[in-house]
């Protein structure tokens, strides 16, 4: 299928590299070089996915995301420098789905696009079945059970809740803040110790080596992500 992908990027070389990579994989490209143009094109063109550089000259990336989110649930992938964690978190909390760190490779870019596409499909299909799986790891949302390689895994209620949240957002970066809000509520604050400890416990159950995770990976300074493949 020939999805329209909007790239909002003011650097020409990066723009052309992204364009090329996308076209090579058979997508149609729409480009914008500032925030205003990005918002307009997101609205007018039939845009499926948006790639948004957070360093656009005319407006704050968060503003672009919020404005687009008012009308559309299209996946938004933001592009940002590595040492700008707070910028990424703010963008994710404003409604972005994923992020790419500069410099990134075409492989990384396409991996993110594929995740976004799957999201699109899931949005269309809604959650039809009562379960979901990622490779060997499977969750049964009706029975509230977790399986690893077809064997039932004993998880605590908190661990189950955590996994459930990840399975609802496969491939997506979940910020530490949003996970804490889901698990402990909004009033809990920003203390990450309990989450880190919970995550360590869960990893010891689902990962072969918790320091080389295959399912839930850490995005340092930002949050976690359940890898879908």
């Amino acid at each position: 299928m020939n999805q329209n992908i909007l790239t909002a990027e003011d650097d020409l070389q990066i723009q052309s590299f992204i364009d090329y990579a996308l076209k090579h994989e058979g997508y149609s490209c729409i480009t914008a070089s500032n925030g205003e143009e990005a918002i307009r094109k997101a609205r007018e063109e039939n845009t499926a996915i948006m790639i948004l550089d957070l360093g656009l000259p005319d407006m704050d990336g968060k503003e672009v995301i919020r404005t687009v989110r008012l009308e559309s649930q299209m996946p938004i992938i933001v592009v940002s420098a590595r040492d700008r964690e707070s910028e990424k978190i703010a963008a994710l909390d404003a409604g972005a789905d994923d992020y790419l760190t500069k410099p990134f490779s075409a492989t990384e870019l396409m991996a993110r696009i594929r995740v976004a596409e799957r999201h699109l499909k899931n949005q269309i299909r809604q959650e039809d079945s009562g379960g979901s799986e990622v490779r060997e790891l499977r969750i049964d949302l009706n029975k509230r059970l977790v399986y690893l390689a077809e064997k039932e895994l004993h998880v605590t209620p908190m661990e189950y809740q955590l996994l459930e949240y990840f399975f609802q957002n496969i491939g997506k970066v979940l910020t530490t803040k949003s996970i804490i809000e889901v698990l402990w509520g909004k009033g809990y604050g920003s203390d990450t110790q309990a989450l880190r400890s919970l995550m360590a416990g869960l990893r010891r159950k689902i990962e072969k080596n918790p320091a080389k995770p295959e399912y839930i990976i850490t995005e340092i300074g930002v949050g976690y992500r359940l890898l879908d493949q």
Partner: protein
Amino acid sequence: MSDNIGPAVSRKPGRFTALLISLGIFAGASFVGYLFHIMGFPDTNVVVVYLLAILLIVWSTKRFLYGLFFSVATTFTFNYFFSEPRFTLSVNDPNYYITFVTMLVTALITSILTSRIQREAHHAQKKESEIRAINNLTNHLTDARDAEEIADIAVRSIGDVLEVSVGCLYFDETGNPENTYIFRTKRPEQRELRRRTEKAEELRWRINELRTPYDETDEFYDFPLYGKDGTLGIIRIAREDIDIEDRDLQELIHSMVDSVAMAVDRFRFIRQEIHSREEIVKERYRANLLRAISHDIRTPLTGIIGTSEILLGKQKDPEAIDLTRRIQSDAQWLHSMVENILNLTRIQDEELELKKQPEALEEIIGSAIERVRGHAPQYDIDVEFPEEFLLVPMDAKLIEQVLINLMDNAIKHTPPDRQIRILVENDSKARLQRIRVQDEGDGISEEDLPYIFEKFYTSGSNKPYFARGVGLGLAICETIIHAHGGTIHARNRADKQGAEFEFTLPYGGETYEPEHFDRGR
């Protein structure tokens, strides 16, 4: 300057002068006594005149012993010349014995008291003038604009107050005596000149090893000027000019030397302060510039890395593929350089407060491996981790950078089919986490080992491509680990060929206790 610094203490007359004065007073008193006697006054008046004489003698000679001697002398003179029978030492009226004894005792007490009062007055006067001298010195020193002026004031004041030839010799910031020093000869010439420092090395050693309040040579007594951070110099006084056994004098010298030391110390401190403030401003400017440049490099770098990757996919010619790979790896190298520089500027900026948070090292290792795999997918890095879970305060991004740099370093020196592994240990006794990155590469040469963490050191071997960038990467590792209060070491492995880098992360006062989890299977 020398106008109001000077000796104010009246001095004892010499022995000969004292004797003449005493004899004069004694003769005068005897003459007055004789007149009284002729005029028929009672003998008691003669006694009073003699007592007055004793008082005057002690007062003018400032010598107790003279008082003592003349007490006895006057008693006998009175006995011989004035008491009946005259011109003998024998006495008719036994009442005279009482007169003699009373006279002697009174004379003695008079001389004792007078001399004591005098001594105290003398002492007080001396103390006062010393205090004035030190105050003067301190005041002048406060106005001094530089070290030269301090030295000048010091030699003038000390020279004038003590009437000595004196020099002021500085040691430089590294503790070495300067080549020349200011020296001022004593009265009457009072010539100021610069003298050459003889045997500087020996002088330094002697002063540093000094266990007594001063050092002595054939020519001088050297009094060290001690500052907060070591010896600032010496005040040297010509040996022949002072009596070093005089305690009061020594005390005075020490007070003056201390004042000078304080002034020099303050001056150096201020100079250092200004210097380091300038350095900080310069350093910050440099860091900002570096950061801005690095940020800007990242954008075209993204284009280069991305485009070269696409180019690589389109190439069929093996030579073109090789060339494109080279572009890619150079761009990758540049990228890691940029990341390192950015992190370095970050540490320097936040030197005082790292953004430390309780972190799980396993997460950071996982992320670091993921990133290394991004540019070196042919390497598989093993991790051995303790089962227990521990939160350790650290700046996650910086520790990730350390791990990436150590792994990149290992990769540079290890072929892909050999093992690279990360070992983590919790040392609950020392309250720290110990992390080792081991490779099976060629190891580190003995000559590189001591310098391996030095900034911008790249091994001297003629393999520029391999060595490139290693210097900065490892130097940054050291900076980051030290900023965390940990240690970092490089060594060759004992068990097999290869290098091992070990660093520690203390969790010292923090209260995160290890947790154990069941595996749930």
